[in-house]
Every structure is written in structure tokens, then in C-alpha cells.
């Protein structure tokens, strides 16, 4: 009896250990494996249960022990006998107990089976529910997981992008820096070359500067000359125009050939006559008068547009009338 109890205790212990193991397993972080193992055990246990319920009850036959002779004392024999008897009794008790136990067990088993069936059903339902829940959870999990994956993916992509961006920025920065560096180097090189070139050109420039100075001086002189020529041309142009105007008004008196009268003509800036006077007579009153009359006869003297030139050159004009 004690032995059975011990065995029972032993079994309970095993179960407890198993439970502990399960708990331990349940405590495991990776719930997926735990869940898988539980399901596996459930399946196996169900299969075992089903197969056990369908098989015939196992017949327990006593297995003849082989004769082993050993000299023993009476006490021992007696003890043995007693023991045997005890054992037999125990055996009988045991058998009875077993019978009771078996009956009980059978009942219990039956009950258990019922219970088990109920539980099984319940469990199946629960399992179904659980499966559904799990499925849901799984779906949710998967969705979450997918979401997480997506998030992660996005994060990763984002990160990748950021990294790429960062890398690109770094690359650009690097390139920029490189470029700046190159540019600086280029500048430095150019500066060096420039300095060299400048040094090389310095001498040439010096020569050219001299030539240029001479050229500029010549050009300046030429321009001055041109300007003077232009001014001279302008003066001559208007001298001729004035001469023409005077000529139209001039009637040289006869018999004055070769005589010359010189008059001073003062003009307003508008070209109108301010005054005219004889500054050197020809000796012929007629010629003097003809010169004066010719000047007075010009209503308006043609003058250049350049007022400065007019003021400088044309405000006072000396005219010499030489009778042809």
C-alpha cells in the first residue's frame, strides 16, 4: 500500500516536475515554441488516449520466477514466511485493493473518461476557441507583426533613406569639400600659375607698357590732332559759309583791284550782327563801305552748333576784303 502510495507520490512528483518544466517552458520567452510543444503534447496525448480506450485491457500474467535456492535460517525462514505471508496477505490485500482500486480506478477511469471526454470536449471547444483566439491573435499578431514589419520596414527604409540621405549628404559634403579643396587647389595652382605668368608677363608687360604708353601718347596726340582737325574743319566749314554769305552781299566797287579793307565783326551768339567797324581802311571809301555793307547785309551769320566754339572763335571775326 505504501508502495502504491509511493508510486503515486512519485507520479505526482513527476507531474509536478512536468508542470514545473511546463511552467519553466511557459516562462520561456519564445512563446511560439511553447505553444507548439503544448499543442504537440496535446495531440500525442489525445492519440494515446484514443488508442488506449479502443484496445483490450491488458492481462497481467504472473511470470514464474526461476528457483533460486539459498540457505536461510529458521528465523529467517520464519521471517521469510511471515514476510511472504505478509507479502501474500499484502498481495491479497493488494489484489483486493487493486481490485477495489481497479474498480475504483475503473470507475474513476470511467468518470475520468467522462470527465476527460467532457474536458476533452470542453478542451476541444476551448481549444477551438483558443485556436480561434489564437488564430485571431495570430492574425492580429501577424497583422501586428506585419505592421511592425511594415513599421520596421518603413523605419528601416526611413533609416535607409536617412542613411542614404546622410550618406548622400556626406557624399555631397565630401564632394563639396573635395570640390572646394580642388577649387582651392585649383585657385592655388592658378595663383601659382598666375604668379608665374605674372612674373613671366611682368617683363613683357613692362615692355608693352612702354609701347602702350608710347602708343597712348601717340593716340592721344592723334586724337588731339583729330579733334583739332575736326574743330579746324568745323571752323573752316563755317568760315566758308560766312564767306559765302558775305560774298552774296558783297559788291566790289570798280577800280579797287588789289585794295584791301579789314573790318572787325562782332556777333551775338545767335549769329546776328552786333557791330562792324573798319580797322584798316583800303583807302577807297567805296570799298570800305562795300565791305561794311556786305557784313551788314547778312541777316544772320551761320555759326557752329558748338556754343563754346562759337564763343571762342566766332564772336569776333576779322574780315579782309580784297578787291579782285
Amino acid at each position: 500500500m505504501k508502495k502504491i502510495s509511493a508510486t503515486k507520490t512519485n507520479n505526482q512528483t513527476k507531474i509536478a516536475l512536468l508542470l514545473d518544466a511546463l511552467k519553466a517552458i511557459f516562462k520561456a520567452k519564445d512563446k511560439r515554441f511553447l505553444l507548439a510543444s503544448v499543442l504537440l503534447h496535446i495531440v500525442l496525448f489525445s492519440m494515446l488516449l484514443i488508442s488506449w480506450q479502443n484496445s483490450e485491457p491488458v492481462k497481467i500474467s504472473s511470470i514464474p520466477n526461476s528457483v533460486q535456492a539459498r540457505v536461510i535460517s529458521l528465523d529467517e525462514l520464519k521471517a521469510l514466511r511471515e514476510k511472504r505471508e505478509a507479502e501474500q496477505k499484502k498481495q491479497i490485500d493488494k489484489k483486493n485493493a487493486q481490485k477495489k482500486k481497479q474498480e475504483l480506478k475503473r470507475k474513476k477511469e470511467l468518470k475520468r473518461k467522462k470527465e476527460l471526454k467532457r474536458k476533452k470536449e470542453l478542451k476541444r471547444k476551448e481549444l477551438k476557441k483558443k485556436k480561434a483566439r489564437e488564430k485571431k491573435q495570430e492574425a492580429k499578431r501577424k497583422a501586428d507583426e506585419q505592421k511592425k514589419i511594415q513599421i520596421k520596414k518603413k523605419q528601416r527604409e526611413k533609416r535607409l533613406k536617412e542613411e542614404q540621405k546622410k550618406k548622400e549628404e556626406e557624399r555631397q559634403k565630401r564632394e563639396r569639400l573635395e570640390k572646394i579643396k580642388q577649387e582651392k587647389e585649383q585657385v592655388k595652382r592658378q595663383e601659382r600659375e598666375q604668379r608665374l605668368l605674372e612674373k613671366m608677363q611682368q617683363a613683357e608687360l613692362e615692355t608693352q607698357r612702354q609701347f602702350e604708353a608710347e602708343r597712348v601718347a601717340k593716340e592721344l596726340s592723334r586724337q588731339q590732332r583729330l579733334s583739332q582737325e575736326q574743330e579746324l574743319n568745323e571752323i573752316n566749314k563755317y568760315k566758308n559759309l560766312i564767306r559765302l554769305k558775305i560774298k552774296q552781299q558783297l559788291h566790289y566797287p570798280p577800280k579797287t583791284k588789289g585794295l584791301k579793307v579789314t573790318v572787325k565783326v562782332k556777333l551775338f551768339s545767335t549769329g546776328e550782327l552786333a557791330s562792324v567797324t573798319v580797322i584798316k581802311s583800303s583807302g577807297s571809301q567805296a570799298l570800305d563801305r562795300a565791305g561794311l555793307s556786305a557784313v551788314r547785309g547778312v541777316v544772320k551769320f551761320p555759326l557752329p552748333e558748338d556754343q563754346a566754339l562759337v564763343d571762342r572763335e566766332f564772336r569776333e571775326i576779322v574780315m579782309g576784303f580784297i578787291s579782285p
Partner: protein
Amino acid sequence: MKLKFIFLSLFLFVQSVQAELYIEIREGSDSALPIAIVPFANKSGSAVPYDVSRIIANDLQRSGDFDALSTSKMLSLPEQYDQIHFRDWRLLGQKYVLIGQLKYSAYTKKYEISYELIDVLTQQRVLGEVLSSGSKGLRKLAHKISDAVYEEITGVRGVFSTKIAYITLKQLTKNKQEYRLFVSDADGQNAHMIFKSHEPMLSPSWSNDGQHLAYVSFHTGRPAIYIQHVKSSHQRKVTSFKGLNSAPMWSPDDASLVMTLSKDGNAEIYTYDLATNALNRLTNHYGIDTEASWSPNGKEVVFTSDRSGRPQVYRMNIKDKVPERLTFVGKYNARPRFSKDGESLYYVHQSNGGFHIAAIDMKTSEQQVLTSTSLDESPSLSPNGRMIMYSTLRGNSSVLAVVSVDGGAKYFLPSDSGDVREPAWSPFLN
């Protein structure tokens, strides 16, 4: 310091003098001087026998030196100074305006002419005078005013009061013709005959005092040189040598004549002393030398000679008698006349198939043909040296024509006396 200041002042003065623009004018207008001869106001109360202002305008116009404005173009007819609108005359381009009035005095029976010459540009009166004359002398007064105006403006004495002498040929019948020697005003008007002949008359020449005319006449049947007093018509024979007696010309001092005589067998140039009747032969050449005239100073003569084979003009000093050929252009150059200043010579020049009046500059020997008429002959210079009168063929008649010494002005003198030839322009007559 003082010296520096003087130099500086002198320098600045020179600079200022140099700074003035100088324009030399050696040419004048090709047109004549515009002048407006406003018709003189007739205050006489009756018609005047002569249009004095018209005579003046014609005189000045003919001179070639003036362009008289047509009366129809005048915007107003002022009679006195304060009536002159100078702006109008200036707009019309006139240099001078001549205004005047004519009155008649019944007491003296004379006309009184007052005139004023106004310079339009200065608006000043440059000439003014009051003259009087009988009705017959009005023309003379007009010429006198013309002379005064001309001289005032040009400085050269006018020749409008001078006379001209010329010879006309009138065919009386088929076989009878009459040569007449006329003296008229310089414009051809107021002509009166001083001698006539049925025989040819040639080469009238005025004495320098304007009192006498020398000419050649054949009225005795052979050529002789005569001197005739213009006013009295008193005639004196000077030469009547055998052969030619032609082309007399008074010396500048009127003491002698230069003439052509062929008394020695060939036509040669002689001078004839009017006081002593002495002859002085100047030329001695087998060629024909004729048509001599005096230089202004009386020391030289110029004449026509064909000693080179063709008639050309030569000059000769009357003392050394060395001829010098003056003309080389053309095959015919004849009848030379000196200008009054002796710087030019005028003569008949043959060119382009005609005979024209030409001038040669004695300094440059440049020749200028002055006329475009044909068969021009007998040039005679006006006393002021501005005009040349000559005879030329116009239609079928010979007429007198005038050209200015620069060739600018030309006109003909009308005549109803047949052929008119041999003009001679008088000297100034007081």
C-alpha cells in the same frame, strides 16, 4: 618786373589778336548792286518833259554795276526820308534807295530837283543834293545825279554825263550816201550832227579836254585829218599828205596826235605836234603799221602791224622806237586801246570765225574775249575805264554796243540813223 609786365601784356595782346578768326574774301557777288530808284515825286503841278528817275535808273542799270529795282516791285514810293520803311527795302534785298522830288519855279522858270541817297542797312543818308535846270537841262541833271550816285557808291566817277561821237552812214539814194559825224549823250540820246559828207569819214577821236574831235574825212576827195571844235564846229585840216592820213589819236596832253601816214610809201606810225606841226616817225617797217593809240602816260603807243604776216598788236616807246609784240593769240588782233590805268589793253580779236572785243592783261598776258557779237570793231573806252563802246553788226546794220571791261554788262545803243560806226567816247566833261 616792369619789363616782364610789358612783355606779358605784349604776349597777351598778340595772343588775343591771333585768337580772332580771320576770313579773307576775294570774291563778290556776280550780280550787280541792288538799288531802288524811287520815282521822284512831281511837285511841279504839271507834266515834266523827262522822267528823271527813269533816266537815272537806266543809267545805273546800263553801267552793269547796279541792278535797279523795277518800280512795279516796290512796296512803297517814299518821297522823303521819314517815309522810308527800311524793313521793306531790306526784305527786297536793296542796298540803297534813291528818293527825290521835283519842283518847278515859275519865277525862275526852272525845275528844282532834290534827291537823297539812303543806305538801307545803316539807314543813313549818304548823298543829297538840290539841283536846278530848265526843262531842256533835265536830262543833263538826271545824268548828273546818276554820276553822283555812281561815284558815291562805287568810288568811280560816272560817265553818264559824257558824250560820244560816232559816224553814221545813210544811203540817201542808190548812188548817193551821206556820212555824218554825231555827238550825243553817252546813252545815245540827245544826238546832234556836227559834220556830214558824201565821202567817207573815219576814226573820230576826242581831245582830252573834250573840246575837239579829230577825224579823217575824204570830203575833199582824198583822205585828210581834221580837228573840229565840237561846240563851234570850227574845222581845221591837220594833215593831208599823199597816201594814207588816218587813225588820229590825241596824246594825253592834247599836244600832239599819233596817226598813220603813208607819205613815205608805206603805212607808218607818226606823231604830229599840233603846236609845231612837226612829224615824228615812230615805225619803219615794210609791213603795215596803223591804228595807234597812246598809253595813259603818253610815253608809249600801241598799234596794229602785220609785220609778222598777220595783224597783231605791238607796243613802242616813242623814244627808243623799239616795237614789242603784245598779242600772240589768234591770227588777227587790231585797233588796240589802253585802259586808263594802263594795265589792260582792249582790241579787236578774231576768233571762232568772228571779230570780237578782247582784253589782255599787260602783266599776265592773259587774254579775255569780252563780246559774243560778231564783226566788232573800233573799241573806245569810257573815261572811267569801266565800259567799252564799239560798233558791231546787228542784223544787216552796224550799231553801237557797250560792254563792261569785265564783260559782265552789255547793251546796244539804239539808232535810227542807218549804219552807226566808229564810236569815240568823250573824256569827262567837267
